[in-house]
């Protein structure tokens, strides 16, 4: 690829990303009332999206090879338990991550 072709490719990636981010705001401008269906989606989608993102993070974990997803499972339980116990975001995240690093570096 020439430099110009590289620049065009990068511009396409920028354009694609910005389209997905700006489109809802362009379709439903703040000045006009948002359709009820869209407002409904706005209230129920986030909970589903957080589930989707969690699965997205774990998409490459293989249950049948390597460590069978055991370090991931243990560490997620640690994160959830810490969070339900203390409800301190940073503590839950740090605790789970340290647990995961120890497991993948020393145990599995």
């Amino acid at each position, binding site marked *: 690829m020439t430099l110009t072709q590289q620049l065009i490719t990068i511009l396409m*990636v920028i354009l694609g990303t910005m389209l*997905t981010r700006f489109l809802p705001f362009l379709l439903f401008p703040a000045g006009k009332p948002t359709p009820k269906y869209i407002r409904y989606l706005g209230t129920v*989608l986030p909970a589903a999206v957080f589930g989707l993102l969690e699965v997205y993070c774990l998409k490459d974990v293989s249950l049948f090879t390597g460590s069978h997803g055991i370090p991931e499972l243990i560490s997620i339980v640690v994160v959830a338990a810490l969070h339900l116990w203390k409800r301190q975001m940073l503590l839950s995240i740090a605790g789970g991550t340290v647990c995961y690093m120890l497991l993948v570096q020393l145990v599995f």
Partner: protein
Amino acid sequence: MKRKAWKAAFPYTIPIFAGFWFLGMTYGIYMHVSGFSFWYPMLMSLTIFAGSAEFVAVNLLLGAFNPLQALVMTLMLNARHLFYGISMLDKFKGTGWKKFYLIFGMCDESFSINYTADIPADVDRGWFMFFVTLLNHFYWFFGATLGGVFGSLIHFNTEGLDFVMTAMFVVIFLEQWLKDKTHTSALLGLGLSVLCLIAFGSEQFLIPAMAAILGVLTLLRKPMEKGGDAA
């Protein structure tokens, strides 16, 4: 006003700091070993600010020139931002000029924090969300540039540090769960995503999963609104 918002926003971004300098550096190193100078990750992390798209962009740059493919791939990969936008329509209202930057920087992490954070009543919402986005953007830029410059020199055992992002999404999922009265949508999101992951594989599942979530939530609109899910 800005000081207060900054102080409230910063703690929420600490896990992103850990995650982004690591992931950003991985990205910078990846670009470095793929033969690109540090200018590429530096400028791309600044202008694209969507982690997964930037990793894919490396492959696009290494392949044959095909701008349409680059656009379609990015649209598919980032289609989930449409859901974020729909959810943030109200929350970004009245944020003035900052709204443009808030939308520009609405990556998974910025969205998740800005949607779920309990912003104290005496803190300006617009500035809070602005600083969350700005800090995340800076962490990513900082990591990517560092990786691009020092790519081949860095050797220490960070294996598993990327789990920090998974852990953060577990916490965000839990926070949303504790706030919601009913959990239909959360369970649908998890269940349908897992089903689609099994059916379509890790490379292809995102779009079918989003379509399934959208479809089922649309079908369930009446009972969900009655049941108080959409309150």
